[in-house]
């Protein structure tokens, strides 16, 4: 290797800086490559990724790809009610003659929207509180935050969410609010455990000794180190939120008819079991497919963040 000739210290500094940037680029590229390798090592994760992407695309493009977009609204056609799956209606029609395939695809929209919105509302405050409580471990801040968290963790989130949803006006947005109110403590607890452990790490101590601010330590030193478990949890949780959303709409506390939602479709269809089974079974399978996709992807994401064994 030929050593570059260096004439002044500023040139040297520039060279060093350039080299560091280059190394950072390389390591980023390698990390990306490594992440993709770990994800793709398990073909099921790739299948999950493909499922999730196509479901999202399908939901976005619903008005253009569904055979009967009008059936997503207040539409009745009793002449064609309860038709079993056939060429014209691939998954059959429901009790008032609407195409089930169309309604499933439109129903995906509210399910996915709920998953995304709830996590967006829940994760930032949950993580922040967990970091704070962990960093100020043993002080009143810790006590206050974690005692409140404990209270919310003392009851299954679905019950509180149902209770909140039931006293509010039933609709999709209040459903999301109800679920969000009950979901943040799970992130707080996850991050708290990690943050308490991180507090004692040398790099945090080192930052403290050099006089870094609490903000710097929380967001620049500790936050990056809790992100991988958080992301992993998010990818699994989104499926849970979708299930809970469908349960809310199943009992009539979520999306209101005629707006299609998978939960409502199942609860309507359950009344026509076993003879008109397709009305309930296909939306149920749709939920399974959505949840399966996110779980497969979630496993892949966990593999991606997992430390290499050996």
């Amino acid at each position, binding site marked *: 290797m030929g050593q570059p000739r260096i004439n002044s210290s500023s040139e040297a500094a520039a060279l060093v800086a350039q080299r560091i940037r280059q190394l950072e680029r390389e390591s980023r590229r390698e990390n990306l490559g490594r992440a993709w390798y770990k994800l793709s090592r398990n073909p099921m994760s790739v299948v999950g990724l493909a499922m999730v992407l196509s479901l999202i695309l399908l939901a976005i493009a619903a008005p253009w790809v569904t055979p009967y977009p009008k059936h997503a609204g207040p539409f009745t056609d009793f002449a064609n009610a309860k038709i079993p799956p056939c060429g014209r209606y691939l998954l059959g029609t429901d009790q008032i003659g609407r195409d089930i395939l169309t309604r499933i695809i439109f129903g995906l929209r509210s399910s996915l929207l709920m998953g995304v919105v709830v996590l967006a509302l829940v994760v930032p405050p949950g993580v922040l509180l967990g970091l704070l409580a962990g960093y100020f471990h043993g002080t009143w801040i810790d006590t206050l935050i974690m*005692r*409140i968290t*404990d*209270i*919310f963790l*003392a*009851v*299954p*989130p*679905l*019950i*509180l969410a*149902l*209770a*909140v949803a*039931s*006293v*509010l006006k039933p609709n999709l947005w209040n459903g999301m609010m109800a679920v969000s109110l009950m979901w943040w403590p799970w992130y707080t607890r996850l991050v708290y455990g990690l943050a308490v452990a991180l507090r004692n790490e040398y790099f945090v101590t080192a930052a403290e000794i050099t006089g870094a601010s609490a903000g710097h330590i929380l967001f620049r030193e500790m936050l990056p180190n809790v992100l991988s478990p958080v992301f992993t949890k998010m990818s699994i949780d989104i*499926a849970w939120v979708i*299930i809970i959303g*469908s*349960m809310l709409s*199943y*009992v*009539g*506390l979520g999306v209101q008819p005629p707006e299609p939602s998978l939960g409502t479709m*199942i609860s309507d269809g*359950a009344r026509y*079991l*076993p003879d008109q*089974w397709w009305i*309930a*079974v296909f939306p*149920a399978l749709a*939920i*399974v497919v959505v*949840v*399966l996709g996110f*779980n497969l992807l979630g496993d892949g994401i966990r593999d991606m963040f997992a430390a290499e*064994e050996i």
Partner: protein
Amino acid sequence: MSLGRFLVRRIVHSIFVLLGLSIVIFVIARVMPGDPARMALGARAPQWVVDRVREQMHLNEPLTVQYVYWLRGALRADFGLSLVTQRPVTADIQEFFPASLELVLLAGLFSAVGGIGLGVLSARYKDTWIDNVVRVISYAGIVTPSFIFAILFVLLFGFVLKWFPVIGRLSEHTVAPPTVTGMVTVDALLAGRLDAFADALRHMVLPALALAMGSIAQEARITRSSMADNLGKDYIAAARALGISERVVMGRFLLKPSLIPTVSILGLDIAATLGVAFLVELIFNWPGLARYGMTSMLHKDLNAISAVILVLGVAFVTVNILVDIIVAYLDPRIRLRAARSE
């Protein structure tokens, strides 16, 4: 001693948690809805009736005073009347809670036996077809919500195969055993009625299995992965290197540490089952607490809603304490640390 102290601390902590929960419930049932009296009576009730009820419910007092009234009632197990059944809420809960408990306990048994069994099988035969079958089953279990299992089971085992009944707790021709605990299987055994016991059990299989599927899958996965993790640990290599037989290494030195995460999750899952039992009880027409709570929520029956949540909270907290005891028994590190931090 050490374990005793650990327990006392745990219980004191739980009491504070439940007190906090009571505030949350109070806020949900009394503060959020606006006017609970109007809500209870409906939009068509005349104003003077609403005013009278407001007076009865102490709604004109400051919130803190209202809370004290409410809490005092709750401590005496007095939650007022249910709007739906027109009976004291406490009487309703006494009737419906055992039915749920019975179901959840059977579901818990299914999850423990099925989950740990499948998990060990999967780890033992890792990367063979057995492992793959178990993994597919547990995947299906994890991604399918319990109410969908309920519907599929009703359809398949109820209507198509006709193996199990799908409605209620007993068949029409079975005379119910005298109520002692409220749990039909237990009451049947107490009365020495094996026919009623078998019949009740048959009615419980499908709903309990539907409730348990998710946690069976979860336990199987956790057991498998923690066994796989621990298999790489030095203490397993050491046990093997010192000549301990493969059977003892796997069945004892690997199994016990590997079951610790399973047991902690199992407890949480059983407790969570209480929470997701709503739809399953609805589908199987099971007269349980969850269904009662659901009905009261749909009718905005606030007295009943708050009581149900509080009861579930107490149950949840109790299960968690039990789990802590079992985990502390399995894991000396936790026991000793708890003793030392005193």
